């Protein structure tokens, strides 16, 4: 039953699947406790520093996936532009770290290198303060999502049109960043960070600390997503996904319902981007554009978009497969990923997370062997 999924051994566990009679909250508590155990005790002791920092990266991508699971899996909003919010969070954090590295009154190293600027651009200045930069990593993406969402959902843009629009936003942000090389680092992005709030990022102990922060962040987002999914709002969100017009006739405004999911998902992606920067040490346009935005969605689809842990498992599994396969077959990965997406959409719409239920069903009806 558990051998159905090939995934990173350090991936968080699925909720207990055995048919033991435990209440919902108790199950959740067990799930979160075993997740915490795995992430905070097992993974750090079992993995090398290198593997652990890779895992930190995967978990950041998984945080984006949790948001997509909410917006797409529960709300039906196929958002192909989560890279934008991931990027906004990432750049906000990176700008702060660059300024902190440079010291008060100094230009970040890359600006000094290009030599086009005498003074810090005005929009960089607030990011010198952690009191601005840290909240901004989450609030800025939420603000952008709010503005776009209010416009789009009220005008009843949906389905493929919404997907294309959200993707266009990702393309636009990338074009902007590359065009503004002098102030954004262009294609190179922002990298070469020395410190993270006074801690030396080269020190493995501090890298480990960053991993713990990422793991904690992921558990936090999972708890938030779970609360939302089980709330009345979560029920209404599913209703909007399945019958938007009907919801309208019951006196609800679907635009508002969708907006909340979209904004929350954006905030999650922003936090993920912010933690990605210290964990991986770089943020650049190639990490936030159209292709990575699609990859986020592929991971969620593979894992199973409509259940809590599906997106996390999928994101980690796909990112892990990408790392291991693209080392050996760099050219083939993109095709493989596309193939994976097609296979899942065509044959396993519920994603990997639906395999246990599928296996149970197969076992209950004629006693046959279980696939995969």
């Amino acid at each position, binding site marked *: 039953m558990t051998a159905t999924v090939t995934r990173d051994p350090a991936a968080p566990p699925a909720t207990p699947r055995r048919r033991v009679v435990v209440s919902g909250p108790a199950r959740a508590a067990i799930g979160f406790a075993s997740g915490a155990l795995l992430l905070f005790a097992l993974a750090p002791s079992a993995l090398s520093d290198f593997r652990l920092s890779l895992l930190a990266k995967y978990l950041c991508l998984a945080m984006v996936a949790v948001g997509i699971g909410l917006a797409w899996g529960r709300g039906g909003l196929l958002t192909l532009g989560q890279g934008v919010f991931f990027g906004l969070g990432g750049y906000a954090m990176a700008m702060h770290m660059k300024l902190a590295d440079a010291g008060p009154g100094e230009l970040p190293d890359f600006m000094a290198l290009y030599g086009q600027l005498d003074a810090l651009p005005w929009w960089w200045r607030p990011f010198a303060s952690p009191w601005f930069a840290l909240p901004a990593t989450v609030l800025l993406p939420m603000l952008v999502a709010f503005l776009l969402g209010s416009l789009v959902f009220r005008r009843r843009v949906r389905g493929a049109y919404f997907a294309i629009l959200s993707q266009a936003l990702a393309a636009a942000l990338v074009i902007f960043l590359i065009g503004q090389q002098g102030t954004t680092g262009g294609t190179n992005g922002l990298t070469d960070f020395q410190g993270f709030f006074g801690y030396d990022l080269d020190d493995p102990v501090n890298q480990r600390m960053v991993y713990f922060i990422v793991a904690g962040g992921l558990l936090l987002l999972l708890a938030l997503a779970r609360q*939302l999914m089980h709330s*009345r709002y979560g029920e209404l969100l*599913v*209703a909007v996904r*399945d019958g938007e017009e*009907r919801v*309208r*006739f019951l006196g609800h405004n679907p635009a508002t319902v969708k907006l909340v999911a979209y904004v929350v998902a954006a905030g999650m992606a922003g936090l993920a981007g912010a933690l990605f920067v210290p964990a991986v040490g770089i943020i650049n346009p190639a990490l936030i554009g159209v292709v990575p935005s699609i990859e986020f969605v592929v991971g969620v689809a593979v894992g199973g978009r409509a259940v809590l842990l599906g997106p996390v498992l999928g994101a980690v599994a796909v990112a892990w497969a990408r790392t291991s396969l693209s080392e050996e077959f760099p050219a083939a990965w993109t095709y493989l990923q596309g193939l994976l997406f097609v296979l899942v959409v065509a044959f396993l719409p519920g994603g990997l997370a639906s395999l246990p239920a599928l296996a149970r069903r197969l076992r209950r009806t004629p006693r046959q062997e279980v696939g995969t």
Partner: protein
Amino acid sequence: MTGLEIRGLRVSFDGFVAVDGVDLTVAPGDIRFLIGPNGAGKTTLVDAVTGLVKATGSVRFGDHELLGRPVHRIARLGVGRTFQTSSVFEGLTVLQNLDIAAGAGRGAWTMARRRRTVPVAVSEALETIGLAGRQDALAGTLAHGHKQWLEIGMLLVQNVDLLLLDEPVAGMSHEERDATGALLAAISAARTVVVIEHDMDFMRSFARTVTVLHAGRVLSEGTVAQVQADPRVQEVYLGTGGVA
């Protein structure tokens, strides 16, 4: 209780006039049947009243003019409707369906939390529509007739004053039809009901008043007996207009 007053209602789609100057007054507590051949404009009329299609003229519900308001605002004023095809949320349970219907105007704090108890209105509606034992069943697994009742239950918990039902008994067995009719009679004690129906037996048994629409206009109006005696109605239903 609130009645409905429609004056000069006109709906056109790209030059095709689906509703052509309809005047219609439904008294509070009435059970009004809208009948007429296919294409008479019955459903379009309901669409216009509920804000789904643009219309000119006037639709007054109590003190409110409905035309020009968005769908969810009209719903919050107390106008509820069902559709020809059942449109319950199939992936949600009966209870969840009803709870969502009861939930317009809930605050953010209530929405962010889990439903701990069954709201009183919801449990009453469960009794009324006879689905009390099935509250945790997925709506998609209900039989067709039960889905239609769930729809009516959703309007009850939505606490609407005016129910607009589009072919509520289509596809139902005789027993289910009678039960639905009794349900409508009970509902009309405190609410106004408008029913679009093709089933003439059902209409004869449960209508209090009838309006016959034909080609976007009101052809005849009155009690069941009056309408049946109207030669123009007979012509539309039995003569050449029967197919139109």
